[in-house]
């Protein structure tokens, strides 16, 4: 694990936006798969509802709405933002980078540094580590971290292995340097030997888009249908991976942070599905009441799920100071955890659009 540590840097505000368009999983694709399938999947995954971006809405639009809300609520002078980071695997364009478009849309100065990071479920924690690192250097004043996904666009609605899991959302966080923030610790990892566990085969430059790559085909004996530009997931091995790597990583991180893994106020995990998450929590022997979840309402929103859970579930719970664990894991495979203090963090009301 790559270990990073910081002092006096923290999240001063956090906001999230989701589309109003709500998918009721129990009624979803019943004509195709039948009620029973939906019922079984919902009972195992715990995902009752998800939000789908309507046609024309991108991850960047959700981030934009979240950012506008946050910057207004925090009454921030936008010229103090020296870096805008956009994290997504569903960007607006192949080029230019979406962060650059958002610099302009948000009315930020041309003297703002901007770049995009491509990672999935681990990406919010990765993004925090980048923002914290830049801030620790002392040059930049505030960082605007934007993280959005329209995962609904990536998976085939006719592939029951993935059709019921994913939802859309976008978040914004303002990070800054302030002595009031305590120490924070990050652990970041990757394993490309597991690149095939969660993947889209075509549409990058290894296998460029063509009429062929978007043609739907039946991919298994269950009649699941997708194209090569749809995502797929080997759920069993993802579960094996989580069981294998995450407890190990959290033990090492807590040892390094000299923190009892059981002494923290909240544990916010990537919202994969309730079956996997519950098992992980049980294995780690963490009290369930300290583990907020949002997947029942929003599903798996990839990198957005950790901050979305904080906005959705902890807005009223957070005290002046809270020691939290953040842990994201998934596509890559890539996994990242952080132990940090959330102090006086302003959390905006959830934006729906």
């Amino acid at each position: 694990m790559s270990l990073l540590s910081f002092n006096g840097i923290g999240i001063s505000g956090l906001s999230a936006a989701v589309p109003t368009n709500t998918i009721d999983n129990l009624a979803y694709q019943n004509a195709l798969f039948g009620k029973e399938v939906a019922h079984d999947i919902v009972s195992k995954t715990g995902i009752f509802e998800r939000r789908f971006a309507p046609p024309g809405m991108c991850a960047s639009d959700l981030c934009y709405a979240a950012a506008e809300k946050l910057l207004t609520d925090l009454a921030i002078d936008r010229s103090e933002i020296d870096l805008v980071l956009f994290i997504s695997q569903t960007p607006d364009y192949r080029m230019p980078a979406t962060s650059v478009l958002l610099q302009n849309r948000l009315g930020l100065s041309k003297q703002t540094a901007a770049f995009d990071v491509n990672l999935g479920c681990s990406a919010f924690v990765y993004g925090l580590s980048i923002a914290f690192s830049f801030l620790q250097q002392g040059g930049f004043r505030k960082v605007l971290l934007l993280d959005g996904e329209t995962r609904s666009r990536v998976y085939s609605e006719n592939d029951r292995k993935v059709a019921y899991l994913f939802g859309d959302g976008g978040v914004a966080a303002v990070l800054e340097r302030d002595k009031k923030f305590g120490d924070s610790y990050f652990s970041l990892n990757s394993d490309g030997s597991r690149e095939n566990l969660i993947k889209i085969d075509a549409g990058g430059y290894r296998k460029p888009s063509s009429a062929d790559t978007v043609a739907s085909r039946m991919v298994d004996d269950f009649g699941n249908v997708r194209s090569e530009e749809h995502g797929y997931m080997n759920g069993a091995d993802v579960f094996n991976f989580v069981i294998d790597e995450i407890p190990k990583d959290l033990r090492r991180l807590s040892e390094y942070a000299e923190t009892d893994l059981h002494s923290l106020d909240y544990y916010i995990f990537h919202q994969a599905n309730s079956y996997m998450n519950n098992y992980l929590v049980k294995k780690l022997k963490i009290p369930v009441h300290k583990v907020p979840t949002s997947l029942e309402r929003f599903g798996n929103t990839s990198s957005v799920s950790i901050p979305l859970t904080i906005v959705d579930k902890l807005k009223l719970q957070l005290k002046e100071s809270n020691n939290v664990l953040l842990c994201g894991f998934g596509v890559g495979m890539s996994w990242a955890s952080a132990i940090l203090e959330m102090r006086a963090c302003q959390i905006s009301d959830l934006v729906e659009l």
Partner: protein
Amino acid sequence: MAFQYIPNIAVKGMAACVPKKIEDNRELSLFETEDDRNKFIQATGILKRHTVKGSDLCASDLCFQAAETLLAEIGWERSEIGYLIFVSQTPDYIFPATACILQNRLGLSQECYAMDISLGCSGWVYGLTTIASLLSSSVNMKKGLLLVGDTTTITKSPKDKSTYPLFGDAGTATAVQYEEGSIGLKIHAATDGSSHKAIMIPDGGFRNFFSSDSLVEHEIEPGIVRNSLQSILDGPGVFTFGITKAPKSISGVLEYFDIKIDAIDYLVLHQANKMMNEKIRKKLKIEPEKVPYSLPEYGNTSSSSIPLTMVSQLCYPLRFRHNVIVACGFGVGLSWASVILETNKIVCPPVIEI
């Protein structure tokens, strides 16, 4: 203002790899007349370019070879490499991130920080800044690999004389280390999204999905035919941008950190085209021998152009001398960034071809 100083960081080695297939602008049938061709070559300075066309090579393959070559000479244990950043706008997949795949291909530890950054011509400077910041906060890992590469010949229409003869493919590797006492990096970065349409690929992202329509060719004007998966380049717009923003960024970072332009051994510019780069050089009043070009041999290689220029043109001074270098990347976004760095007898094998 996005200025940043990151001390205790040293660039320890650089390598570059290009595909062996060459396209020679002197033989290209895209130009209508000999006169057109000569004018183009004179203005851009681009004689030939290396391309992955006709092979299966991706940007990641070029970076992989560059990294292997660098690691073979630099003597780092692979297990010591804690950071891997891949900068590209031509990644292998929509997901997973190509950096994760490279972590495994290069035999790096699972305990490696790996991520992709999407930026173009300014990407090397951004990548260097990011990996340097991370290394500075790192507890246990002090070495990182910055892999920067693009295969933009794939994203240009062969029927578009405004883009096709300009671009070449390359992949590079830069070895970066945290080292107490090293001078480190001084950086300026800036962004102008209001001009994002100047260089872009309209389709194939999540704003405009790929569809069969994306592959339909349109004639924009005679000699410029392209589809919506191929990139647009507003030449005049980018020219104006380059010759104003780049010199301002370079003189800005020198001034901010109080460094005289005479103290600079080399100015390495993103290789846009000869005319633009010469304008920038003249504005800054820097002697021609301090401003290397890789344009004639390799064309505009997008994010790779700064490291490729260093490896191909400055190999000798990089290997045997101490150098103060300013590098400036500017382009797609629009995004631009400058860095002042010092190198001291670094590892720098000659450009490899695969």
